[in-house]
């Protein structure tokens, strides 16, 4: 029988809600600048909780190293890509107004995408780092 039933059950119960909350924070920009950052932290911390309870080995099956690395790099790429897109469309770097015909809409879109990039990066970074601390990220 499992000995840490309490932790396990409560974690299972909360986990989907935590992850959804992270995505909610991600997509509701009214949290102000850094919505993506906070979302990333929440998602990452949720995953850390999972790792604490179920062990790194299980967690690694959920998020394999290669996938993590891809998400990490991809996040940065989204962030920089949006900036470069603005640049290619004739504005300066990080000028989102040019992303759409309507400058306001362009700004919104740009910020959403940037935040998405930040969020993914932060989440992936937190998870990778925790794996490192948890101590099974070393080459044998």
């Amino acid at each position, binding site marked *: 029988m499992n000995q840490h039933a309490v932790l396990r059950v409560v974690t299972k119960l909360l986990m989907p809600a935590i992850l959804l909350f992270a995505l909610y924070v991600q997509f509701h920009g009214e949290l*102000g*600048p*850094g919505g993506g*950052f906070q979302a990333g932290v929440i998602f990452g911390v949720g995953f850390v909780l999972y790792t604490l309870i179920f062990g790194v080995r299980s967690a690694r099956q959920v998020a394999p190293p290669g996938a993590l690395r891809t998400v990490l790099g991809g996040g940065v790429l989204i962030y920089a890509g949006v900036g470069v897109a603005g640049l290619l469309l004739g504005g300066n770097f990080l000028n989102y107004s040019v992303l759409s015909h309507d400058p306001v809409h362009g700004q919104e879109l740009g910020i959403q995408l940037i935040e998405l990039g930040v969020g993914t990066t*932060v989440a992936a*970074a*937190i998870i990778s*780092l925790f794996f*490192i*601390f948890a*101590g099974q990220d*070393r080459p044998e």
Partner: protein
Amino acid sequence: MSFPGLINSWAAMALMMIGFYAVIAHGNLVKKVIGLNIFQAAVFIFYISMAKVRGGTAPILGDNLTLFSNPLPHVLILTAIVVGVATTALGLSLVVRIRDTYGTIEDEEIRAIEAAE
């Protein structure tokens, strides 16, 4: 500078001292990292207090229409926090690897091992 601002500044100073002391005085690497964290937290507090008291005596840009809606300090704090988190994470992961290779995270013992090499 208004009273709460002063308090914040003193708190920031005190935290800085504590953090700095921990960085210097502790032989335990984890404690050093924690000290570093406290040290950085002091800066956040300092920036927060700065954001609040800016209406006071500080000479600011000529057109003070944007004084209070200025989001800048918050962005700065957030950025600084991100950087701080990254530093802490990296520091701790180094500690983990140091423990793996040296078998200890006490500064003195590590030095002794290195001296014996």
